[in-house]
């Protein structure tokens, strides 16, 4: 019977090529968009290295310092018989400054947190430019502590990570991405490990090669990673609380994140500002991974608000974009029910009941969506590789993993089912006498 249904549905598709084309066009295009979107979400927010621990992550990208002055506002009542002069006082935030933190601040204050298991500090403010046989290379330079490699589990292709001894000794070693290795050495193989790289005025030995992350995040957008103590000496000596360092922490379980966030907020609010010039209050921004992502895009300070502001419109937009082709398909299917009235009538007259007809048409629709889905996947793969090879989205590259294909299969079935159920229901209720008239 299964085979019969399949043959029948293929025959029906062939009978009216124009309608088949319209349906397939809508289906394959919609499914392609959905596939691209899932792929984009998977690349930026998915469970990819170095963000496998993203559910236990708390990020402190920067701190804010404010200065509050008390204004004296004089009110003079001119209508009163005597000069009645009252003063009111108002607190005004006269100056705000926010930015990353200094080396001293993070190493002295952010390494004794109760809830944090691992500490990552990084400085992303530098570039290493240079020339190799007249060819320019430009590397984003990150100065990171040993804990950075625990928090972000980079995928090591060759070699190993930097460790505590490298931080203590300010060793001239470096971890580079496969892209940087290809640019500098022409290859990203094991033979690169241990080789020397001339970066700036110094020579560094390559310790490890990591795969370039899929997503573009200020936490790990670098091409070369140095031990934190190799950073400009001025950054290390600076007594200021603001500097060039960001921080991220791993908690033991995702449930402890809230506790860590509270701990960080408390630390910021109660920080002794007596040593800080000009400013009198501090706030430590902290966010979970998703909040941090939404904040970065919207430049909105409140993490959970940013999350709402970003994802509600995005979800609404996607729903609308999917609903339209879906409706289109439903419309088309319904209007075509009448064409096949006679066929349904005959089937019913020979003993098929409503549910048989229902199953048959849902199945037919699934066949149609499946064909459209295959075309959609092929289009999507072509587009993804086009986007990736040309770096159209900057650093972010789209992924096509097993998960994406799995989600996609679910989407195909859902799409086929939703667009088929209403027309099939209407068909199954056709009156035999009417249709055979």
């Amino acid at each position, binding site marked *: 019977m299964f085979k019969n249904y399949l043959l029948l549905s293929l025959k029906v598709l062939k009978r009216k090529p124009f309608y088949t084309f319209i349906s397939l066009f809508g289906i394959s295009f919609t499914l392609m968009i959905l596939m691209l979107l899932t792929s984009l979400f998977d690349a930026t927010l998915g469970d990819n290295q170095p963000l496998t621990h993203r559910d236990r992550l708390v990020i402190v990208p920067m701190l804010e310092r404010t200065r509050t002055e008390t204004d004296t506002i004089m009110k003079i009542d001119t209508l009163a018989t005597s000069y009645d002069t009252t003063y009111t006082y108002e607190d005004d935030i006269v100056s705000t400054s926010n930015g990353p933190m200094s080396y001293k601040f993070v190493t002295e204050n952010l390494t004794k947190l109760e809830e944090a298991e691992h500490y990552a500090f990084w400085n992303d403010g530098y*570039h290493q430019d240079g020339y190799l046989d007249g060819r320019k290379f430009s590397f984003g330079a990150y100065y990171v502590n040993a804990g950075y490699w625990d928090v972000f589990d980079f995928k090591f292709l060759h070699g190993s990570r930097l460790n505590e001894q490298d931080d203590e000794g300010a060793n001239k070693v470096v971890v580079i991405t496969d892209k940087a290795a290809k640019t500098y050495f022409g290859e990203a193989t094991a033979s690169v490990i241990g080789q020397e790289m001339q970066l700036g005025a110094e020579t560094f030995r390559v310790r490890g090669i990591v795969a370039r992350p899929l997503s573009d995040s200020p936490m790990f957008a670098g091409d070369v990673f140095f031990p934190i103590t190799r950073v400009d000496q001025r950054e290390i000596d600076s007594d200021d609380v603001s500097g060039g360092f960001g921080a991220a922490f791993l908690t033991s379980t995702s449930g402890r994140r809230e506790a860590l966030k509270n701990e960080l907020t408390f630390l910021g609010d109660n920080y002794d500002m007596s040593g800080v010039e000009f400013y009198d209050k501090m706030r430590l921004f902290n966010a979970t991974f998703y909040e941090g992502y939404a904040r970065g895009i919207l430049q909105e300070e409140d993490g959970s608000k940013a999350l709402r502001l970003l994802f509600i419109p995005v979800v609404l937009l996607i729903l609308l974009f999917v609903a*339209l082709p879906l409706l289109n398909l439903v*419309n088309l299917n319904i209007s075509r029910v*009448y064409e096949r009235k006679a066929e349904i009538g005959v089937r019913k007259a020979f003993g098929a009941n409503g549910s048989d007809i229902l199953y048959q048409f849902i199945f037919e629709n699934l066949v149609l969506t499946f064909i459209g889905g295959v075309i959609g996947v092929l289009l999507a793969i072509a587009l993804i590789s086009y986007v990736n090879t040309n770096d159209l989205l900057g650093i972010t590259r789209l992924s096509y993993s097993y998960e994406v294909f799995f989600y996609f299969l679910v989407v195909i079935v859902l799409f086929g089912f939703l667009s088929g159920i209403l027309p099939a229901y209407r068909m199954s209720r056709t009156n035999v006498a009417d249709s055979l008239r």
Partner: protein
Amino acid sequence: MFRHLLKLMWNKRRANSMIFLEILLAFVVLFGVFAFVFYNMDRYRSPLGFNYEQTIGIRMDFDDELDSLAVIELQNRIHREMIAMPNVEAASFIGPVNPFGGNTWQTGTEVNGQQIRTQMLFADYRFGETAEVTMTDGHWFTEDDMKGKYIPTVVNAEFKRRYFPDVESIVDSVFDINGEHIVVGVTGDFKYKSNFAENFPLTFYPQMERLGEGDPYEMMVVRLRPNTMAETEEDIFNLLVDNTKNTEVVIWSMAKDRNKANRPVMIPMVILLVISGFLLINIALGLFGVLFTQINRRRAEIGLRKAMGATSGQVTLQFVLEILIVTVMALLLGAFFAVQVPLLELTPIPGKFFYYGILAAVTIIAVIVLLCSFLPSRQAAGMHPANVLHEE
């Protein structure tokens, strides 16, 4: 006739409700996309006001121990040596904010009873010529301006437009914005963050004050001869490394930086437009298919009307009007919801873009619906009554 048509459509409300819903949703999507695109295109229209082509940006690092005078001498030496290079046309130093770099400095002060908010850009007296800034009034600050009592500043056209709209000229006025400055010139429209940035009041400051705070200008904007970037870059890099005795020298192309700065708006806009385009094709094809089957199913009715003396034109008009009634109702409902967005000020975007969005969405949907209903209707109306009635 109109009431008659309404009744006809009401009788088939189940079939029409799906078309109604589809048009309504299409309107909502198009309205949103158009409002977003119009808003950004309006911003794109206001010019950048400076030349970024064939221009490179450079960041370097001076020794912190250098005395101010030594910094100026070093800068002048770098400038001299650079200008002497065959491919360099002009060069200037700029402060901590670079065009297309992504950072902003903004300040708000009360001046003569009005709150003035302005972005700040730090540039030396050679910047006007290097970036080919157009001036609408006065001049870009010169070396001589630095010797006056007040430190000179240059403002952009939006600054004057927003805060001093009724004054003939604000050149030679002294304002207390981050210290007292005398305005020596007004540029044309000038914005530096990206093509999609807001045309915002902007003031330019020379190096003097920042030098006093131990924060000399450590970035450069250098204009090169056309297509010489690749060959000149390494020489410039070496020149700067030699002069600053520091390898922390970063060179970038301003044209590329502009593309990067435009990307956060450009990418969503292109994606939205492409998707909407495909959605429209999809809807047009679908509607065409649906109407084709629906109208063909009414052959008997057509035959009857024609036999009673109706012309093909009248029959076509009837079908087109039927669909138009559904469309108009869907658009009215959609427009009712859409109008709430500017009326309730749900977004900071000015209301006019939403009205343009409604207009554009209505026009496009109306055209598509007319086309998709006209073709099948005319085809059906052309049928000969004898043939059609004969079949029944």
